């Protein structure tokens, strides 16, 4: 009990993870009509969480701009199975954690008017989702990771299902079942690994990440385990051909749901590959690499081409997500330091620029209740501020130099070219296509004559809406002009994971599962 209090009150990861969940409780007691109070309260909680996050970041950020691995004690949770409560933040999870926390107040501001009913439930769902996401990113124990991974599903399901569009239930159930389908198989994989571990470890159980890294499976078993993990993460990313839930979820979700989904939830898939699927099963990764590279390439081109032909702004942005995440996957599959740095940065970039695009589409939808291109045109004359932000976010997404997207894509392509060769060439077409469809969107909505009379009376962005967009744009520019600040914290952690991966690749083939004394990642100290 004392330790729980200490963890919750101190400047710790536990506080970061559980503060939003605990702050949900007062929402139960707000009077039914006090919608504004609920909004302000939820926003305040998310801002306090942001302060906590910044505080944590600057406590641990080194003077040279690197970020060490920081963890807090290992506490036994379910003793007999060696299941531990252990949270660790390192250079890989740090940017995503910060992004996740940073997006929550923005999402709340963006949903201020769009969400009309049941605000207490919406606020609670958002805060619980934050807890789930942060827990997933920080869990250093596979069982704990799985729990958070599943916990995250329920609030997102509610967000899509309660506040979504017309086909919201279909989309929500599809989202839930797709994600669950993968993760249940991953659960069997995790159980298999933990069981093998205890068999080799004299009956002492563990689900700890470092212990799982010590397991060496023969290739034919690795392939199965990798398949279970990779399927889970591929669904979340989403990779072609298991991407079909994403357009539905995005189109039906309310603006806030789309932003959080694109901004952070999808990244958990790529994070899962980087943290678990690749380093745990290096040999299987080598076997599956050609297939996955193909799928990533198909994702890039397919996502872009489908985005091109959409007549609905939100669908366009949704399909562009598939293409962008394909880039990230390609970067991860290159197994190359530069490509990984680019991929991690691109995860953040996509969260910022796509988040901003979804917000903008939502703001337009709040005014006109339509997202069709045919309903717009010439908006630059009516709503110049809106036009500015839309162009800014689109250009960031396209990869215009001096904005964030360029850095990420350039690093990925460099790394991929170095290690894989030709796929980089194919992927470059994806960049061209991105320019085509995003410029098409800008052209059809902002430029040209005003075709519809309803559009002449549109209000420009309010102060609240600008306040939601400006922080995103500041970071897009900042990452674009000074990327090193954002790359440096992750470099060491990525290098360590890469070393671990390569060591696993070079290890001699084993006939049956064996256990090594220590994992490389744990050797480098905590």
């Amino acid at each position, binding site marked *: 009990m004392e330790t729980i209090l200490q963890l919750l009150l101190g400047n710790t990861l536990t506080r970061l993870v559980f503060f939003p969940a605990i702050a949900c409780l007062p929402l139960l007691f707000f009077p039914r009509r006090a919608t504004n109070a609920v909004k302000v309260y939820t926003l305040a909680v998310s801002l306090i969480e942001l302060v906590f996050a910044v505080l944590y970041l600057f406590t641990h950020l080194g003077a040279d701009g690197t970020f060490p691995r920081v963890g807090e004690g290992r506490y036994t949770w*379910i003793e007999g199975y060696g299941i531990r409560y252990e949270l660790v933040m390192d250079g890989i999870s740090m940017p995503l954690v910060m992004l996740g926390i940073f997006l929550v107040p923005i999402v709340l501001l963006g949903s201020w008017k769009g969400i009309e009913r049941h605000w207490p439930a919406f606020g609670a769902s958002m805060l619980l989702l934050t807890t789930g996401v942060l827990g997933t990113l920080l869990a250093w124990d596979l069982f704990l990771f799985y729990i958070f991974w599943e916990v995250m599903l329920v609030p997102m399901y509610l967000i899509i299902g*309660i506040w979504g569009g017309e086909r919201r239930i279909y989309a*929500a*159930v599809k989202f839930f079942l797709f994600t669950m389908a993968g993760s249940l198989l991953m659960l069997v994989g995790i159980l298999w690994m933990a069981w093998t571990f205890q068999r080799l470890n004299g009956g002492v159980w563990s689900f700890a990440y470092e212990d799982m890294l010590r397991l060496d499976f023969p290739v034919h078993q690795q392939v199965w385990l990798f398949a279970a993990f990779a399927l889970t993460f591929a669904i979340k990313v989403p990779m072609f051909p298991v991407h079909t839930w994403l357009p539905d979820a995005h189109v039906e979700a309310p603006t806030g749901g789309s932003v959080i989904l694109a901004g952070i939830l999808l990244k958990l898939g790529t994070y899962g590959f980087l943290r678990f699927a690749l380093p745990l099963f290096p040999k299987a990764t080598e076997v599956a690499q050609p297939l996955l590279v193909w799928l990533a390439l198909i994702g890039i081109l397919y996502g872009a081409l489908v985005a091109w032909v959409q007549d609905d702004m939100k669908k366009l942005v949704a399909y562009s997500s598939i293409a962008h995440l394909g880039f990230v996957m390609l970067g991860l599959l290159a197994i190359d330091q530069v490509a990984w740095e680019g991929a991690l940065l691109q995860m953040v970039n996509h969260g910022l620029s796509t988040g901003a695009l979804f917000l903008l589409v939502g703001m337009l939808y709040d005014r006109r209740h339509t997202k069709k291109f045919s309903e717009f045109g010439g908006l630059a004359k009516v709503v110049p501020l809106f036009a500015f932000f839309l162009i800014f976010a689109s250009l960031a997404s396209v990869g215009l130099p001096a904005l964030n997207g360029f850095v990420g894509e350039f690093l990925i392509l460099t790394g991929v070219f170095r290690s894989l060769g030709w796929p980089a060439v194919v992927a470059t077409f994806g960049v061209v296509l991105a320019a085509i469809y995003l410029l098409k969107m800008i052209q059809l909505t902002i430029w040209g004559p005003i075709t519809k009379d309803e559009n002449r009376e549109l209000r420009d962005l309010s102060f609240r809406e600008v306040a939601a967009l400006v922080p995103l744009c500041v970071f897009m520019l900042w990452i674009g002009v000074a990327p090193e600040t954002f790359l440096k914290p992750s470099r060491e952690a990525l290098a360590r994971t890469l070393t671990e991966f390569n060591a696993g690749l070079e290890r001699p083939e084993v006939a049956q599962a064996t256990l090594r004394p220590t994992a490389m990642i744990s050797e480098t100290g905590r």
Partner: protein
Amino acid sequence: MTRADLISLLPEMILCGAGIVILLLDAIAPKLRRSFTLLAVISVAVAAWGAFEAWRGVPGPSFLTWGGLLETSGATYALSLVILLATGLCLLASQGYLRREGILAGEYHALLLWCAAGLLLMLRGTELLTIFLSLELFSFCLYTLAAFHRRIAIASEAAIKYFLMGAFVSSFVLYGIAMLYGATGSTRLAEIGPKLAGAEGIPVGASLGLLLLVAGFAFKMSIVPFHAWSPDTYQGAPTPFVAFLSVAPKVASALVLYRLLDAVVSGGVAEAIEKWTVVIAALAVLSMLVGNLLALAQRDVKRMLAYSGIAHMGYLLLALVVMDRGSLMPVIVYLLAYVLMNAGAFTVVAMLYDRPGEQHLISDIAGHGYRYPLLSACLAICMLSLGGIPPTVGFFGKYLVFLNAVGDGLVGLAVLGVLASLVGVFYYLRVVYYLYMKAEERQPEGLLLDVWGRTAAVVAALGTLVLGIWPWELVQWLLEATAR
């Protein structure tokens, strides 16, 4: 008859005595009827104390009383408590329903308590005729209770169906006992095992007898292909009673099934063990698949829960496919989880549906999430737990069962199990989305949301969550209790 014998029978005697007292009070002072719930719940609590007393003095891993007819062990104590928990939840859930329907009477409580006594007795029986007698004791109570809502037609239909099939199965069980006795010369499970080992090969009579017995208890647990009664019966029987019917008999039958398989294993004939492994695996797979797939098609929430119960018993059997002492703990945890989430779900259903004689369509609770926030939240938690979503005890139970299966090398069965439970998630979610995502169609009339029923729902939902987050103390205790 020694003092130890009497003490070992303490919980059953308390329950039977309390039943009689309530029945007498009902005749003498019918005005006290509303307090029967409290009385019955107290007597259940006292019976739990009795079970503790009976277990506390046990020297060694298990203790036989009444000349070896009854066993008291950690496992029987734990499962007794599970059954008493189910009884308590059912009692709490019942009062509001019975008052609303105008059928509040002492018989209900008395029959329920006797039923619990029969279940506790069967749980502990190590001799086949004792098991049969207690099976009949609780079965008769169940038949009567299923027909308790006399005025509605489907209740009578449900009870008749249940009775006819149940009576048929009772004769199965009796015939099985006779054949087993004929083949081995004993009705004591502890002696049957070694006798089987002594025989050459496996005597046909013994195999058939065991098969009939397994079929009988599989019927009580509603395992495919012996499941057909449960959806019809659940649909017609009084809903709060279904909270009991759908869990308690399964708990006791599961342990009897364990004992039967244990007898086979202790017989040590490799061929027999192998064959029984296949049989149980087949039953498990069938139950998981059929239960989940048929539940998908249900529009009536009670029928849906009946099929989901079939599927859950399939998961439970996964733990029994490879028999060893270690499978007892997962089984007990799974049963406890099942009691909490299923009884919780039926409790809420009993309170939120106002027309017991008609279909309980899932769509009838559309939008109730905002009108009845507390009960709906409890129902949603129970549904998520039934679907095996963490951090609920439903997930932890599945985790233990699947871990057991993976540990026994049955990875294929575990994968099948998780895929089946994925199907399950779909129909459990349907309840959640009707609660929260659909607009309200009809406001039920004349609901009686009394404090007893709310307590039952909250206890079940909270228990589901708390045990899901802190399961280890329970598991540790069970490991110690079942190992010694």
